[in-house]
């Protein structure tokens, strides 16, 4: 067939360079004409008029971490599904659609089992603690 031709990737490089130039250029042009008189107060973080106490780089809600973990599994899943999906039609035309369909089903069902597990454990609930307390209270009342 055809040889590897990297010319088709030229616009990608050009666009990335262009994006940097547009962003950098507009900041550079602005730098020549805009005022620049910083004061100490101006350079503090905005906190609705209050003086900020402490830094914002503190502990954050662990929910974000759980979401990120679940995301990674599903993102890897979807990137693994892309090649299978791309050849599905061709396999179907030569009569191997059933084989591919079964492998897709198996693969997805394993992941769905994982999603169901997370759901049951309550990792998909944003306000988990509230739900857990309610269950505890209900258990105690019995």
């Amino acid at each position, binding site marked *: 067939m055809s040889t590897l031709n990297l010319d088709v990737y*030229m616009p990608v490089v050009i666009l990335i360079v262009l994006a940097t130039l547009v962003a950098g250029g507009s900041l550079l042009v602005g730098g020549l004409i805009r*005022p620049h008189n910083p004061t100490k107060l101006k350079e*503090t*973080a*905005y906190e609705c008029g209050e003086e900020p106490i402490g830094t*914002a780089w503190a502990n954050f809600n662990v929910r*974000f971490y759980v979401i990120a973990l679940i995301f990674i599994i599903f993102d890897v899943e979807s990137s693994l599904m892309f090649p299978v999906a791309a050849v599905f*039609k*061709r396999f*179907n035309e030569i009569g191997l659609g059933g084989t591919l369909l079964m492998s897709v089903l198996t693969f997805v069902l394993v992941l769905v089992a994982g999603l169901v597990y997370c759901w049951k454990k309550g990792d998909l609930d944003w306000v988990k603690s509230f739900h857990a307390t309610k269950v505890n209270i209900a258990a105690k009342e019995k």
Partner: protein
Amino acid sequence: MNSTIFSYFSQSKELSTIISGLSKSLGFDATSLVAFIVFAIACLVVVGALATIGGLGTYAERKISADLQARQGPNRVGPYGILQFLADGVKMILKEDIIPANADRFTFILAPFLCMIGVFATLAVVPFSSGFTLTDLNVGIFYLVGMASLVGVGVFLGGYSSNSKWSMLGGMRGASQIISYEIPATITIISIVLLAGGLSMGTLIGGQGGMPQEWYMFHNPFAFIGFFVYFISALAETNRAPFDLPEAESELVSGYHTEYSGMRFGLFALAEYIEVFVVCGVATALFLGGYKVPFELGTGAILVEKLGLDIMLAKNIGQVLELGSFFTKTFALYYVVIWVRWTLPRLRVDQLMTLCWKYLTPIAIFNLLGCAVWMYAFNGKSIYSLIFETASTVAGHH
């Protein structure tokens, strides 16, 4: 190399004469050099056009919102206030640039660049028409999904590096929202890839036709649901209302870009508006037939046959029609995006996560399996052709 903007232009005789002439005078094969120049000009045109569309997007947003709320909207700068976005741009350039003393300087400066690069790089594969696609990469849609996720990194870094509590919360929310909604969007895209049998934009659109019953949206019931899943996820991925939690102004001041002023904020805003256009374009390409024009008018073959036009001229007319088809559908979706923003109230964070993980993701997986089973059971035929075939066999028997 096929179906790039360069290969479209190289159909004309003038370009090949230029290439051979240059090759002779320079002493080496000038094809790549000419390709580079053509690509550079085309990229400039696309970036210029998209920056204008992004700017006009802000104007349209304000004008349409004013219309929906029975107000006037911008009406001072230029006729009907249409030059408002230029005035805004000038204002942003003239604003003082403030970088907080406690901020992480390097990432603070880097964040808007990442957003811009992520959005601009996706433009390489947006199929404006069959000839006017900058490049039709064979990994097209996969590349687009990957590059678009750079915006999420930019949003998170912007929020994190500002060292302000509002920005931190906005950045955190932005990151979790963008990555969460990427899952249903990507799985829906996979189910369309399954129908088309290829990743490049050319293949994805090539399987569809100009008439609505040939679109993938009406190919089968799963793809029909898939369109709405993708559209909702795309709204959330671009931080548009009702999913604009990362910049929720009533609770987080301005979210992840609270500390950004002037042009640095402008870059975030520009990237967001162009990204909305890109996701609308992708929705058009995947579900609404992309640039296809009814009755195969896009190829120009009919014009040559019936009117006796020059082949190149007929092709160019076909391209213009295709551009019109693509932009009409995309702008219609763009209008819906703005319309939704001024109609629905904002979601709460827990509702947002519930919608994504407990509704959209299971529905998207169900759609994926549904599409796979449909392809296997009906040998890739659309619901319309099935009905049509059944009807004609029934009619044939009587």
